[in-house]
């Protein structure tokens, strides 16, 4: 995810260290809420232990998503996070129509993408799904 959450945390640290006095917190409520949000995202990113595994598997992912591959289930494999090269390959193929409806890999690609988006929301804004169901 760009920008890297660590970059954002560095800014939060700088703001707290250099620009905030005690009375600022109420006056700058909006900024304060954003900093709290950044810290919450960071906590969930740090707690998510699947990312390093995915990075190690990165080299295999391009093969994994090629149209001529057999069925796959990203959840079963634990391969929810695609690396940059795999994202580019998949994006190019989608633009070229290789995953259009009625192609053999359409349903699998759709499942992968939905899974990918869902997983990202679970880390970056899990309250989103709760709001949707209430």
């Amino acid at each position, binding site marked *: 995810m760009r920008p890297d959450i660590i970059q954002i945390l560095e800014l939060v640290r700088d703001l707290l260290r250099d620009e905030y006095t005690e009375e600022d917190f109420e006056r700058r409520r909006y900024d304060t809420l954003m900093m709290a949000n950044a810290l919450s995202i960071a906590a969930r990113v740090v707690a998510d232990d699947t990312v390093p595994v995915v990075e190690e598997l990165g080299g295999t992912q391009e093969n994994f998503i090629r149209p001529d591959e057999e069925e796959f289930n990203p959840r079963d494999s634990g391969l929810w996070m695609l690396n940059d090269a795999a994202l580019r390959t998949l994006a190019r193929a*989608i633009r070229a129509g290789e995953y259009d409806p009625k192609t053999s890999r359409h349903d699998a690609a759709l499942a992968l993408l939905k899974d990918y988006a869902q997983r990202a929301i679970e880390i970056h804004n899990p309250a989103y799904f709760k709001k949707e169901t209430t």
Partner: protein
Amino acid sequence: MESFCPRLEAYLRHVSHARSVSISSAERLTAGAIQENWLIAVSFDGGPMGGKHELVLRRDAITSIGNSRSRAEEFALITLAHQSGIKVPKPLYLCTDIDVLGRSFFLMQKIVGSADGRVITREDRTRSDRRNLLTQMGRELALIHRVKPSLSVLSFLGKKTHQPAKSAILRYRNALDALPQAAPILEWGLRWGERHLPKPANPTLCHRDFRIGNLMIKDNHLTGVLDWEFADWGDPMEDVGWFCAKCWRFGLSDRDAGGLGKREDFYAGYSAAGGTPIDTDSVWFWEVMAHIRWAIIAREQGERFATQGERSLEPALTAYIAPQLEWEMMQMTEQTRP
């Protein structure tokens, strides 16, 4: 007092022909995620502006995103809108000399009201109040779409096309190509768009960010249309779809007109004021595209922080809403239009 105030006072004295100008406060407004907006309280001694005024200064941010217009272009658009009787802040002065405040800016009269979408959508209103407000909004959008500017006035706008949907897909793909990280989910949506193109449309002046959040509301009245930085020729249904898209309902999904009420009320105001006949298939297409466009903007906002030196939390965290926009877009492309 902000360090730029003495230079702004000197500039205002010059352009307003006042004997003296005094700024008593300058407050950065949180609204405006891309450009900088400041509320300036200023007194003019003499000249046509003589007296006390509250002005809004809109200045280029340090960085920007693709397809965002310059301040000079936005000033021209607001001026045209003002002359056309559309509710906009009265434009006053444009300054493109970066020696004055370091970046281009313009000043306009402050208009009363609030544009805070989260507050506006949750304020206590009767059904009738909401209907009335949506009717006003629909009417104002129709007025924008009825503006027929001469090409010389807005020569900076893009080329007119009868296939604005195709143009949008091309533009969004170019925007994605310019970003460092590929976005297969958004590519999925754009490919869906290619297969579901709406009918050709007459090129129309579109605001392209007409939504709750950019509309000033005072009590139950629309007082102004803000943020013209994305205006261009386009399909009028794009503005309708952008207004109604789920991503601009501020969490109140069942109110499909901006989180405020029913889209039928918005459509009624739009149609009564001479807007283009509503094409529901086209509106649906543009609602899907709204999620894609907003997700691209969110990613571009992240890049302002990650690589362009914008040291602000707002653009950085905006990038993190892209997944939920992508998720919603995926849901929409799987279902038939409601």
